[in-house]
């Protein structure tokens, strides 16, 4: 079975500061992919970053980076220099043989 757990329903951060969103997962597959999606108030799901499980190097996309701990099955998202536009729901997702999403973390960036 595949599961994705996001244990932080809500988080907040001051503008320009750094915040880390947590995600743990479980799968018996050896080859899989992990994603973070952002869902702003418009509700469109936007891909933020992805990580291939076979790559040891953590993925980065501008201000967004991940800490991928394969043995611990952990995949956290770090947002640096937070901006007001980062306010959104963030979903962690795992794709092994199908795609599974976590319940999401609501992030609020405060001015």
């Amino acid at each position, binding site marked *: 079975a595949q599961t994705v757990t996001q244990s932080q329903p809500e988080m907040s951060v001051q503008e320009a500061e750094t915040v880390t969103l947590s995600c743990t997962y479980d799968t018996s597959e050896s080859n899989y992919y992990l994603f973070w999606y952002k869902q702003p108030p418009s509700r469109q799901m936007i891909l933020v970053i992805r990580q291939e499980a076979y790559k040891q190097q953590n993925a980065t996309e501008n201000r967004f980076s991940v800490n991928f701990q394969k043995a611990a099955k952990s995949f956290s998202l770090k947002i640096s220099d937070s901006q007001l536009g980062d306010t959104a729901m963030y979903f962690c997702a795992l794709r092994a043989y199908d795609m599974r*999403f976590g319940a999401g973390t609501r992030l609020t960036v405060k001015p």
Partner: protein
Amino acid sequence: SQTIHQWPATLVQPVGSPLSLECTVEGTSNPNLYWYRQAAGRGLQLLFYSVGIGQISSEVPQNLSASRPQDRQFILSSKKLLLSDSGFYLCAWSVEKGGNTQYFGPGTRLTVL
């Protein structure tokens, strides 16, 4: 570049009425297509996926059905809506092979009264 469209953006329907939501993808061929439902404040639930014309796989038994009449068109339907069908419906696509990343459309907000 690839784009994905959904319509309508918003829909209010009475219980017992039929439903048809449409999703189309541009700029790619033979995509894998997906329908998800998102209840208020919740994560995404996969409803259907399709790897080709006329090929539909259902993830959960429900009041809904899906069809793929053309390569880049995916339709979500119901003959009689239930109150529990209310939610936000998202269509997504991925490339045919090795398509591990899914890209989402803007979604349709459905309210059943």
